[in-house]
């Protein structure tokens, strides 16, 4: 039993990371109907920023600097993407556009950092492990869980309780209506795009000590984030959170309980959810669908 508790804990750590990464993808899709295929590449930018700044084993100050630098880089990329996609009318074209940006970004990273696998150490004071239920558990992952919990609270308050959040939710539900009310949805969209991308890049830094950085990681992360978003429901913060926690547990607890079927668990879970609830578990409320 104790084993499974630690596994659940670990699923929460992965869920926290997934939440940070998937949130931006979900909100951008919900608000703009843009499937941002560059999201994984932005994550990878964050991971490589961490490689560049913290290398192997740096202090907390450098780690925080990496987080900030990644957030800035992510925000810039996200803002640029928002501007480019807004200048493009069709959704498929927008997806192609983000794919083009993803190619450029990911290839640039390979040019700069090479195709070897890079790994990162957690900042020095968090590099060790603690005893939980008689098992060694990396302290750093506890920090990731804490980060995920705080992020969830902050975002929840921001999106569900503040005026800005009301505008965001309303934009997801019915963009035309919000525009008609005289609110500049453009600025909101760019802001959310940039913030979502910044979060993805920060996710890259935070996941660095766990997943490292290597070419191809962007695709794996994008795929996971897509699954989270689809399972949770497009455009909703609570959906992204639930989806992230669920997928985190499927990959941890599910694997622990059903190791023989580990390969199929992720997609089986997704298919099961979509069969029961085609719009995902907690989709954003939208305007009347005729």
């Amino acid at each position, binding site marked *: 039993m104790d084993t499974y508790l630690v596994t659940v804990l670990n699923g929460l750590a992965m869920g926290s990371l997934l939440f940070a990464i998937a949130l931006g993808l979900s909100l951008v899709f919900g608000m703009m109907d843009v499937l941002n295929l560059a999201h994984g590449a932005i994550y990878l930018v964050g991971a490589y920023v961490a490689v560049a700044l913290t290398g192997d084993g740096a202090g907390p100050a450098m780690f925080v600097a990496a987080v900030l630098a990644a957030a800035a880089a992510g925000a810039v990329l996200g803002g640029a993407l928002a501007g480019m996609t807004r200048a493009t009318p069709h959704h498929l074209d927008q997806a192609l*556009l983000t794919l083009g*940006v993803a190619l*450029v970004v990911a290839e640039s990273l390979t040019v700069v950092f090479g195709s070897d696998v890079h790994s990162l150490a957690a900042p020095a004071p968090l590099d060790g492990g603690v005893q939980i239920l008689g098992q060694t558990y990396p302290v750093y992952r506890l920090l990731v869980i804490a980060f995920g919990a705080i992020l969830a609270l902050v975002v929840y308050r921001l999106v569900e309780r503040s005026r800005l959040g009301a505008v965001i939710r309303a934009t997801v539900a019915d963009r035309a209506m919000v525009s008609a009310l005289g609110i500049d949805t453009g600025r909101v969209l760019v802001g959310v795009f940039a913030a979502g991308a910044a979060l993805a890049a920060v996710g890259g830094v935070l996941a660095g000590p766990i997943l490292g950085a290597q070419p191809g990681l962007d695709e794996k992360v994008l795929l996971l984030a897509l699954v989270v978003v689809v399972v949770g429901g497009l455009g909703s913060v609570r959906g992204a959170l639930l989806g992230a926690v669920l997928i985190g547990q499927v990959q941890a607890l599910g694997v622990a309980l059903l190791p023989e079927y580990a390969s199929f668990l992720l997609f089986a879970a997704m298919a099961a959810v*979509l069969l029961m609830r085609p719009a995902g578990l907690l989709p954003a409320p939208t305007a009347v669908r005729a």
Partner: protein
Amino acid sequence: MKAVETTAPAPAVAARPRRPARRGRAVAAAVTAAALLAAVPLVLGAYPVSMMTRMLAFAVLVLSVDLLTGITGMPTLGQAAYFGVGAYTAALVGVHLTSDGAVQVAAALLAGLAAAAVTGWIAVRAHGIVFLMLTLAIGESVHQLADTWSLVGGGNGLAGMPPVSVLGTALPAAGFVYWWVLAVAAAAFAVVALVARSPYGRTLRGIRDNEARMRALGYRPGPAKFGVFCLAGAVAAVGGALWAAQVRFVSPGDLGFEVAALALLSVVIGGSGTLWGPCLGAALVLLVRDNLSAHVGGHGALVLGAVFVAVVFTMPRGLAGLARRPRRTEARS
């Protein structure tokens, strides 16, 4: 330098001529293209011919993706699964039963049809991105199965397929295999073209453009979508059998995500409103993947990404078709 005009292994026939006047020209173009394609092995060496054989096989897969994505408006990332089912079926038949190409193709067709029927009812319930994700899930699961199932060789793949034979004659040389593949691919093209022009094809385009309106006109889109999903599965499987006939080896890599994504990319590049466009796209994509790379200095993706962006900004209508499928914003009102 005859090779230049034959690098496009796609019969240049319009999917649905809009005016009768165009029909004559389309037929002439198709006959010309077919003649050029048939002449290829007489002119080119073994490698270009084997490459064009693979292009034809891949073009059949791309046709199936176009049937779903371009004509019915269901963007799919799972067709490689049925391509793989076809390839594995053909290889198993080749290794254990007979080297007869027709039997292999027929067996693959049935297997693809069955696989699509079993998985399709789940997928066609969904729309847009959710459909995309479900087909992706199907594709990944089948890939995983191929990777771990020892009966089909697991990750090492299924080797030992003898050269394909037609009417009792083995075809050892690349050129003869090419002709066989060309004949089957042309038949597949004809079938898909017929479907696209038929009333059923019209129904599918209606679903692509406005599924809600179809229901309001009294259509039941579900069965129509399921039908085309099965058909696309069968077509993809035929493509897989043709691929196996040339490569004589099947591995999980043949039904991986990369293949599915390249097929979708071919449709988008080729323009999904037509059938010949995606075939051309298929040829281009394989040409680039397997050959065109010597001169990009290792960093071609930078250039390619920039081209993507440029294409979107300069010719937004050039990649029509998919863009015409109903969008979420239109579904609301």
